[in-house]
């Protein structure tokens, strides 16, 4: 099913919702988000209950269910959270013959491409037994009018830095999604350099999460050529490496975290997967990267407004919940995309 | 000041001193010159208070912080190893760079280097090389194989006139503070820092420069910049004075009062011989002052 079909099958209230939102930006009623499933948290007495409503767009019909769950959150504030709303539909594409792996992820109208390229390089002297990974993001001028010329540079830089922080872990490698030791070929002499490039093709909010998902998908699509090392070399010389054209090693992506951005709008709302329009109203946003074990692997904050420490703690716990769902969703999408690719080839 | 400015202009009697200073800067300064005094209460030939501290940067091999008035310079030397050039196998090398980071002055913006920086940079390296203060042979480690490259970087932390004088003072002070690390030649032919703790390696790799940890500084150069305006000579100008009266003359003498360089980059005023001689006389006096300041700084360092 194509995305156009999907959109046409959405409830007609979508346009109404959007329209109303523009006119009355302050009245963020839950009904406005009918095009997107959401989870609401509401306070009743001391406890906070989760209400989950969800439209499964795949089934072309609105399906609603609710869960009552007590969550120990501080205060009596009403917090509504939309969760994993736009389906991350990832289709693995292979337009770059030179890349070792690539993926395209769409979330609503946000579309990003990630590609992974592996090249032989020399390990740095400070970490002789490890490979190197570099992440760069580029914002295509077609994605938004403000990216024309050098306009996208600042955002590109911010996104690259945030991705590095969220995916590569600490200095010792703890919490890193990519096992750098597995990229080593000969200690101190040869290693793989992974170049991960992200491209924002079309932007409608939540680009960081989309890029994180795309990189995860691209890495799982990445095959690293097997190498044979000519053994008889003196320790001084650079060893000769023979790169195989046929045999590839699959990259292990189970440790790669997913990124969940919660955007704080107004005083009491935080939204997952915000659109551009919603982001324009944000006071601040917190991006949390969470791995499969539920550990936090990175966190960044955007937006100048200060947050109460307890709110940040809340946001981290909400992001953890959201990430579980996103992780499952992404894993199944990646598996499906890979199956498709195998069929076609 | 309002009182004394009365004679100059009718306007000035109705004006605050600060406003007069901004609107008619030249007249403001000339009025002072008539009284043989400068806006900061200095006599014309006197330099500002100067201070010097050695060893300001722990991560460098030699460093110094020099302050002339509010002009502040931080100089630091890092020693690295290079293969000497074929023509001069027994000589090391020095590379001098003068930086004006954005913090030092409102006219410098990041990404656009200040115009003055490369000029001062060139002037400094010319002066230090031609003064014969250093013997580059002292920087040799293993003839033809390895020699020291001394990177001297001077940062202007606060720019308030007479940049060259302060930079030169910081540079020579950094050289006099320089302590060359003890190094040895390892098996791969690379120079590594000699460490006493490294057990078992001592007999194999002897230190190559145990006796050469300090450079012998012969004639040390010191500079004085003066403004020439009409018949007046203003020693050690501030940034404000430099911007209003544009003719500068910089004289560098070494510690035995020999002339190292004389630099007068154009400007509307011409320097006649008597003026130049007056300037040189002022610098002779200043060199004496600076030498005492440097010696005191070195003594302070040794006491610590």
């Amino acid at each position, binding site marked *: 099913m194509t995305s156009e079909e999907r959109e046409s099958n959405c409830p007609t209230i979508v346009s109404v919702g959007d329209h109303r939102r523009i006119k009355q930006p302050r009245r963020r009623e839950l009904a406005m988000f009918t095009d997107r499933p959401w989870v609401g948290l509401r306070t009743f007495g001391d406890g906070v209950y989760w209400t989950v409503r969800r439209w499964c767009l795949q089934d072309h019909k609105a399906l609603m269910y609710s869960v009552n769950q007590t969550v120990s959150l501080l205060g009596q504030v009403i917090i509504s959270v939309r969760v994993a709303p736009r389906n991350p539909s990832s289709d693995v594409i292979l337009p770059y013959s030179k890349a070792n792996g690539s993926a395209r992820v769409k979330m609503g109208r946000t579309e990003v491409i990630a590609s992974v390229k592996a090249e032989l390089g020399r390990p740095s002297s400070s970490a002789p037994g490890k490979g190197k990974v570099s992440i760069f993001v580029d914002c295509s001028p077609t994605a938004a009018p403000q990216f024309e010329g050098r306009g996208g540079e600042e955002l590109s830089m911010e996104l690259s830095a945030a991705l590095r922080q969220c995916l590569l872990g600490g200095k010792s490698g703890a919490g890193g999604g990519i096992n750098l030791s597995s990229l080593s070929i000969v200690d101190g002499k040869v290693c793989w350099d992974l170049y991960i490039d992200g491209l924002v093709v079309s932007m409608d909010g939540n680009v960081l999460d989309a890029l994180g998902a795309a990189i995860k998908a691209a890495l799982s699509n990445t095959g690293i050529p097997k190498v044979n090392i000519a053994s008889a070399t003196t320790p001084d010389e650079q060893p000769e490496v023979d790169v195989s054209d046929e045999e590839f090693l699959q990259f292990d992506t189970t440790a790669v975290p997913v990124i969940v951005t919660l955007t704080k709008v107004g005083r009491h709302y935080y939204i997952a997967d915000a659109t551009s329009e919603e982001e324009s109203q944000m006071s601040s946003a917190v991006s949390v990267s969470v791995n499969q074990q539920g550990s936090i692997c990175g966190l960044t904050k955007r937006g100048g407004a200060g947050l109460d420490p307890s709110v940040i703690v809340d946001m981290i716990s909400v992001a953890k919940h959201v990430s579980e769902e996103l992780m499952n969703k992404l894993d199944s999408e990646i598996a499906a995309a890979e199956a498709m690719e195998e069929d076609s080839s | 000041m309002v009182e004394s400015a009365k004679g100059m202009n009718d306007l000035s009697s109705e004006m605050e001193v600060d406003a007069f200073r901004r609107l008619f800067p030249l007249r403001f300064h000339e009025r002072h010159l008539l009284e043989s005094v400068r806006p900061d209460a200095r006599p014309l030939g006197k330099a500002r208070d100067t201070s010097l501290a050695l060893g300001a940067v722990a991560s460098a091999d030699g460093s110094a912080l020099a302050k002339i008035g509010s002009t502040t310079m931080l100089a630091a030397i890092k020693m690295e190893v290079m293969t000497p050039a074929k023509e001069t196998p027994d000589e090391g090398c020095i590379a001098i760079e003068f930086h004006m980071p954005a913090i030092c002055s*409102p006219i410098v913006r990041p990404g656009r280097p200040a115009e003055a920086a490369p000029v001062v940079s060139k002037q400094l390296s010319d002066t230090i090389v031609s003064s014969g203060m250093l013997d580059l042979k002292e920087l040799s480690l293993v003839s033809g194989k390895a020699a020291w490259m001394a990177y001297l970087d001077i940062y202007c932390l606060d720019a308030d006139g007479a940049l060259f004088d302060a930079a030169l003072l910081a540079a020579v002070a950094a050289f006099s503070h320089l302590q060359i690390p003890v190094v040895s030649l390892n098996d791969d032919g690379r120079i590594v820092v000699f460490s006493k703790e490294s057990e078992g390696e001592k007999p194999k790799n002897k230190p190559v420069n145990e006796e050469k940890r300090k450079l012998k500084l012969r004639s040390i150069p010191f500079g004085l910049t003066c403004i020439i305006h009409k018949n007046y000579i203003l020693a050690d100008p501030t940034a404000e004075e430099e911007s209003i009266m544009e003719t500068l003359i910089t004289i560098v003498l070494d510690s035995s009062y020999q002339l190292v360089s004389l630099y007068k980059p154009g400007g509307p005023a011409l320097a006649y011989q008597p003026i130049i001689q007056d300037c040189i006389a002022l610098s002779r006096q200043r060199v004496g002052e600076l030498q005492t300041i440097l010696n005191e700084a070195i003594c302070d360092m040794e006491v610590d």
Partner: protein
Amino acid sequence: MAAKAGTTPATYSPSPTTNNKKKNRTPLFSDVDWVRPDGRDFHQCRPAFLRTGAVNAASGSAYAEFGNTKVIVSIFGPRESKKAMMYSDIGRLNCNVSYTTFATPVRSQVSDNKDISSQLHKSLEGAIMLNTFPKTTVDVFALVLESGGCDLPVIISCASLALADAGIMMYDLVAAVSVSCIGKNLVIDPISEEENHQDGNLMTTCLPSRNEVTQLTITGEWSTPKIHEAMELCLDACSKLGKIMRSCLKESASTSQE
């Protein structure tokens, strides 16, 4: 320059690169009971030295020294925004961080200042009343004289002090502290050596009197309780640092009055 005129030869720093020595050092940190290289307690910050008015040419400035980390921040403005900038009814903040060539053990090691500059911008903008200087720009320029660990937090705290010295209206001072996670231990205000061995890092910048966090960055793998613990540590240290910064400002105000 003899060498500069010709081709500048390739040079290297004669660092003590005996590999076995480095390997000896790593387990030092992974033990349960190790001692910090500078002998501090795990939860003890380095002594802070702060002073305003370090640069006369600037509208406001501050110098900060935390152990071997030495930073100068100058503030210029509010002054006219660049001509190319569009009209803005709130003020702009322009941040730039640079390092001296001798700041790091190896010469000119720091390459990416843009990232650290944008982090400085993000940490400060929430504290400044930008509406008080419309159409103009305040420039925040930082120079790291020596990098000895925790550079960014020191720059941020120093910059907010310099902003106060320049008389820029702020909601509160910004205090920043970072915590390193090394093995099972959390160490506050780490030095470079500790930062090079850390498993994770958490940096908090906050407005101490308003109890608001303007910036929080986490790297490495963290469990939720550990994050809580680290945040508590940071916030506590931030409020103490805030007091030191406040007293530094009071001191400079009283001396200027005399």
